[in-house]
């Protein structure tokens, strides 16, 4: 088997199977979480649920991540907050505005949009990779985190880091033949897709549910979420 065949396999069957596992697995996870049930909210409606949800999203996605120091929790975990925030931001920027990624979305959904200039993408992907390394070092050295970290967490880190680093190397045409690094990137992405429904990275979906519910609860009580 040569690298051209491996590339065709990873672009074709492997990615296909991992997408099947991802879609079916996430649907499964979703219904399992939803059917756990939640307590009826008996509070009387004093405000607007919708308003609460909107405010909660705006604060959670657009305001607080950029002024994290206003949060009390920030003061004990500055490093985790900043590195974690930068990691999420850069991951989003590269996934949503990277040229090659836009073509993936276009092939899946039928429409695409403008990509960011390559140097900007290079900046964000480096920031993402550095943040991941910082977070790893933090986890390896922090006495409490060390105790809390078990195997699945290391796997989480690895399956997220591998696509990032292989993607970075591929986009910059460093060291490897293109088809080799392209295959490695796709294999690592497939690993990630398969792992997501099994692990905590599924928070990328559940985050939105918790944000909505907390927002609605706060809105109902007319308090700021």
């Amino acid at each position, binding site marked *: 088997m040569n690298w051209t065949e491996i590339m065709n396999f990873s*672009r074709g069957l492997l990615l296909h199977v991992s997408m099947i596992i991802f879609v079916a697995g996430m649907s499964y996870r979703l219904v399992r979480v939803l059917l756990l049930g939640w307590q009826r909210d008996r509070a009387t409606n004093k405000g607007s649920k919708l308003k609460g949800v909107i405010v909660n999203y705006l604060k959670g996605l657009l305001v607080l991540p950029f002024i994290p120091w206003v949060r009390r929790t920030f003061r004990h975990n500055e490093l985790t907050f900043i590195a974690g925030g930068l990691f999420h931001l850069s991951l989003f920027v590269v996934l949503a505005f990277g040229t090659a990624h836009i073509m993936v979305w276009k092939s899946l959904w039928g429409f695409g949009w403008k990509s960011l200039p390559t140097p900007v993408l290079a900046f964000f992907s480096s920031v993402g990779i550095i943040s991941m390394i910082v977070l790893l070092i933090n986890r390896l050295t922090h006495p409490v985190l060390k105790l809390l970290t078990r195997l699945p967490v290391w796997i989480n880190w690895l399956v997220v880091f591998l696509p990032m680093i292989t993607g970075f190397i591929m986009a910059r045409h460093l060291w490897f033949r293109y088809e080799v690094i392209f295959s490695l990137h796709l294999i690592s992405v497939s690993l990630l897709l398969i792992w997501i429904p099994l692990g905590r990275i599924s928070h990328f979906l559940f985050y939105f549910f918790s944000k909505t519910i907390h927002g609605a609860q706060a809105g109902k009580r007319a308090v700021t979420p």
Partner: protein
Amino acid sequence: MKEKTIYEHLREKGLSRRDFMKLCGTIAGMMGLEFVPPVKAPGKIPGPGPEAVVAQALTTRPKLPIIWLEFQDCAGCSEAISRSSSPLLSNLVLNDLAIEYHETLMAAAGFQAEKAKEECLKKYFGKYVLVVEGSPTLADDGIYCTVAGKSNLELLKEAAAGAAAIIATGNCACFGGIPAARPNPTGAVGVTDLIKDKPVVNIPGCPAIPEVTTGTILHFLILGELPKTDHLKRPLPFYGNTVHDHCLRRPFYEAGKFAESFDDEGAKKGYCLYKLGCKGPTTYNACAGLKWERGLSYPVQSGHPCLGCSEPHFWDGGGFYQGQSAPILRLDKNSTATLVGAGLAAGAALAGLNAVKKSRARKAIKTAASEKVSSGTGEEKKEG
């Protein structure tokens, strides 16, 4: 009688010594010979230049016999050779440097042609170069491609038996090409899949670049061996770099400037065609360097993305106009709906089972508690 050397043959045709030396230089360039450094280090005696090596070979060797077979193909590689960017040169290669049996291009036809081939095979046994164009087929004993009642498998084996070297030209002969595209009804394969006991070199492309085919023939003629190859048996002088490596639109790729459609502003300005499906980054070929039509242009220069025609199974490698990063197999709406449905159903079923289990457990606890209450000790009451 001693066979005439190529040089003697050319002199008879009226080529001057000066023109002959020029020709040797051209041939050396075409072969991609690069064993003399461009700047000769002072104090060192330089070895013979590439043109001298070529001249030496041409003045001492007789013409190289070539047998050119066609199997499942469109004859596009032969077309390309006959209309190549340097028609003089390829004419020269095929008429003056080599003796040839070519099914499509030869004047003879029918039984005459068959007879000529048989004679050629016998006379030059062990000396000739076999060029194969088109893919041999395996399905049903190769009956899908027959010439004069013989299946292509028979023809290939018969011709390969006495070949000094084999050159597979075009993607079909190298990797099966279009006939091998899914579902490959004729069981098309590449020559290298069938011939294991002879030196074989692949010149893939759709069609193969004529200068690369002739350059490889010349390499064998002059150096007596096939050029060094990569893992897919492609000669390194021509297939050492990707189309992307030498692309004239590469700066636009680096700057992130892409044509979004074939008629937008970016396309007019000559931006990179990566988003229009260019396979240049994974395609090893000499297009961007040698180009076509006397170095006039090549697909990417003319505004069309590279299809990756020198790579195995390029026909099945996803849409030609879909970006290379796009998955080859995609989930359509129906299969996505089915998958989501399956996931939801499995989740709901397990949740249902859990709910039943839970309610049973609850009931069991209740009945146990009520039984204990009725039998009555203080401690158990607390538990209940």
